[in-house]
């Protein structure tokens, strides 16, 4: 290039650079006439474009480093998570074996005393032994409930269409069969199908329907409903009962682990069932909530992320 650049050439270069041509520069003579305005402007534009190219390269390099670093962190966390899960698996497995054996001894030898030394014990002594047995059995139920809770997080999800109507009917059939003397009315909507993990959905219904059954235990006729409603354009399943209900003031405690709103004297329980339901529902992408009134029953609602 021997002549001075023109302003048209300068604007053309700036245009080209602005649409992504990183190499676009204004052609300037080797011995530029620095008293020519166009020449001075062209040189300035070239400097700016060089600067821009440098900054872009630096940014890209920095971005690559961050990207690699993030990927490394993700890989590290994934490995940590896999390790934690494995430890949890081993821990739960130990619990299954090691915690139950001593409980069996407590229960078994208390019973042995009651049977083999009945004549040497007065009524009070026998009552103490029965307390020991009941406590051992309660602890066994707690262990089982905690293991179920831990399985919720550990297990793999298998999504499929699940006949909730049939599931609910089989749960209530078993409840009625185990307590044939109880009078109950079950209202279960037909044709309810959910998309989710069949086993986990079963645990939800076992817990919610089981609770409804338990807390209607003092009613002459229990009434338990299972159905679905539209709630903010999402389907919400519900289990409603006419049982003991609960005080809404303590509603936020319902789903805590080991939290109970009734004393053991009123209704037995582990205080883990609803925590399990909440964990499952969250894992399945939904939420669970409840409303109730003391003495007038309760309704538990849950939504699921049913996906495509």
């Amino acid at each position, binding site marked *: 290039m021997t002549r001075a650049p023109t302003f048209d050439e300068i604007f053309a270069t700036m245009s080209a650079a602005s649409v992504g041509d990183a190499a676009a520069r204004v052609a300037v003579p080797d011995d530029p006439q620095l008293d020519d305005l166009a020449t001075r402007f062209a040189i300035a534009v070239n400097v700016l474009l060089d600067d821009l190219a440098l900054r872009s390269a630096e940014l890209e390099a920095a971005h690559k480093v961050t990207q690699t670093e993030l990927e490394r962190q993700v890989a590290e966390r994934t490995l940590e998570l896999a390790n934690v899960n494995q430890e949890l698996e081993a821990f739960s497995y130990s619990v299954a074996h090691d915690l139950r054996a001593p409980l069996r001894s407590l229960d078994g030898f208390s*019973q042995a005393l009651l049977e083999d030394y009945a004549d040497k014990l007065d009524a009070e002594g026998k009552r103490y032994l029965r307390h020991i047995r009941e406590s051992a059995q309660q*602890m066994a139920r707690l262990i089982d409930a905690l293991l179920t809770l831990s399985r919720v997080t550990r297990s793999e999800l298998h999504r499929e269409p699940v006949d909730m109507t049939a599931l609910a009917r089989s749960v209530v059939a078993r409840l009625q069969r185990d307590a044939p003397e109880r009078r109950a009315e079950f209202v279960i909507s037909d044709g309810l199908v959910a998309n989710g993990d069949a086993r986990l959905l079963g645990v939800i219904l076992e817990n919610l329907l089981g609770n409804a059954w338990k807390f209607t235990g003092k009613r002459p006729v229990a009434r338990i409903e299972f159905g679905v409603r539209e709630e903010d354009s999402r389907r919400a399943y519900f289990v409603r009962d006419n049982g003991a209900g609960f005080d809404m003031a303590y509603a936020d405690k319902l789903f805590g682990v080991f939290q109970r709103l009734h004393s053991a004297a009123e209704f037995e329980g582990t205080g883990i069932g609803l925590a399990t339901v909440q964990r499952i529902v969250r894992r399945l992408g939904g939420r669970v909530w409840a409303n109730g009134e003391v003495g007038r029953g309760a309704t538990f609602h849950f939504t699921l992320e049913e996906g495509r």
Partner: protein
Amino acid sequence: MIDEKVILLVEDNPKDEELTLRALRKNNIRNEIVVARDGAEALDYLFARGAHAGRDPGALPAVVLLDLKLPKISGLEVLRRARAEERTKLLPVVILTSSNEERDLLEGYSSGCNSYVRKPVDFNQFAEAVRQLGLYWLALNEGPPPTGRT
């Protein structure tokens, strides 16, 4: 005939051993009960070697009540080795354990157990389970014919 049948109880926990024996006694099951306290002892008994070298190897128990968590050699390993030998491959084995973890059930049945019974904490239920096991395996069930070299 029933009374000649031997039960091999493989159990490392002495309290569980005592409770099981008591439950069998209470249910009038008076058969000889041999107790092995770890996996190695169980195999020594089944193969008539080690501490049990003087035993007739052809005389097998009518049923083995097998705990899974054992010292030295695990219950599942005992089962696998028993199944790998001609003489003991048809031996009735009932896994009797605290665990109801799915993987134990799967491994137990895959390794060839005949039955899997969970030991309940409630002693009455436990005694009832032992009673049913005794009655079934000693009285009702027809054991396999002898196999292998005698």
